[in-house]
């Protein structure tokens, strides 16, 4: 069939034709949201404002779930209790980004990755920024600690932590 087909359909447009020549309609939907944070995330955000990280426990699988959730997705039952976890952890993976959220280039790269947090079940992670690192020093397995904003600047957001920096000798 591949051989029998002479022309494959599709009228290609260059960027110039697409933006300047053909008729078109522009539109921007106005879709604004107010998402309910829910039971678990509301408490999580409140604790962030106080400079603390909180998790939930599941008595059945014995996991300590971080970020916290009101049901255990593996046991499919409600979680049982709140428990605090530490603000130190380990880098599970990372990337060094040279593009922003609209895919535009940025000159100062952003170090981002997943931190598995001490006190939670193994590999329970949070995506966040890393600081005080270079492409040569950052590595999977690095031990890190959260750097918090001063209390007056915290709003109850994951950004109340500025980034995670390498642990110094004698910490954690």
């Amino acid at each position, binding site marked *: 069939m591949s051989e029998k087909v002479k022309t494959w359909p599709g009228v290609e447009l260059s960027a110039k034709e697409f933006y300047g020549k053909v008729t078109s309609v522009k539109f921007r939907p106005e879709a604004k949201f107010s*998402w309910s*944070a829910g039971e678990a995330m509301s408490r999580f955000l409140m604790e962030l404002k106080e400079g603390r990280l909180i998790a939930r426990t599941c008595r059945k699988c014995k996991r300590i779930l971080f970020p916290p959730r*009101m049901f255990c997705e593996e046991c499919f*039952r409600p979680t049982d209790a709140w428990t605090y976890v530490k603000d130190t952890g380990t880098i599970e993976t990372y990337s060094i980004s040279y593009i922003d959220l609209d895919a535009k280039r940025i000159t100062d790269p952003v170090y981002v990755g997943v931190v598995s947090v001490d006190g939670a079940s193994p590999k329970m992670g949070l995506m966040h920024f890393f600081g005080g690192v270079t492409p040569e020093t950052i590595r999977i397995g690095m031990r890190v600690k959260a750097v918090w904003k001063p209390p007056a600047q915290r709003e109850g957001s994951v950004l109340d932590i500025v980034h995670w920096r390498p642990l110094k000798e004698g910490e954690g």
Partner: protein
Amino acid sequence: MTFLERTTRPENLRSWRGDVEADYLYTSGVAGERFFLGLRDAGKILAAKCDACGLTYLPPRMYCEVCMGPLKTWTEVTGPATVEGVTVTHVDEHGDRLAEPQVWAILRWPGIHGGFVHRLAVEPAKAKPGLKVRPVLKPRKERVGNITDIREFAP
């Protein structure tokens, strides 16, 4: 079964604001491009006919939705349209009140499968099904290849 804890103080429940936005640019398509260029440059309303099924589509398309065959025969739609249904709107797309009510109609031509929804240049009290109307086009230099190149339909 439900959660084992429930917050009782509403000020402890947070909401998180954001948007789900993007900008869009929609091309008119292969058939649409021909239709809108016909409207913009020649001031004509074009339709496309399925020779197998005998249906003449307005707006015109590349294909017949009944037999899935290609539409090759294009014709011009001339003559008055008939108002099939009307509505008078008092609020805009955001729900805010309009300064003046707007009259909108479904417009059909004889022998044509389809038609338009468009503005009717008739007082609300006089707007009703059965009216015969013609398209009023903007002057050529104001036409851009958009459905609004037709300003409205008037008796």
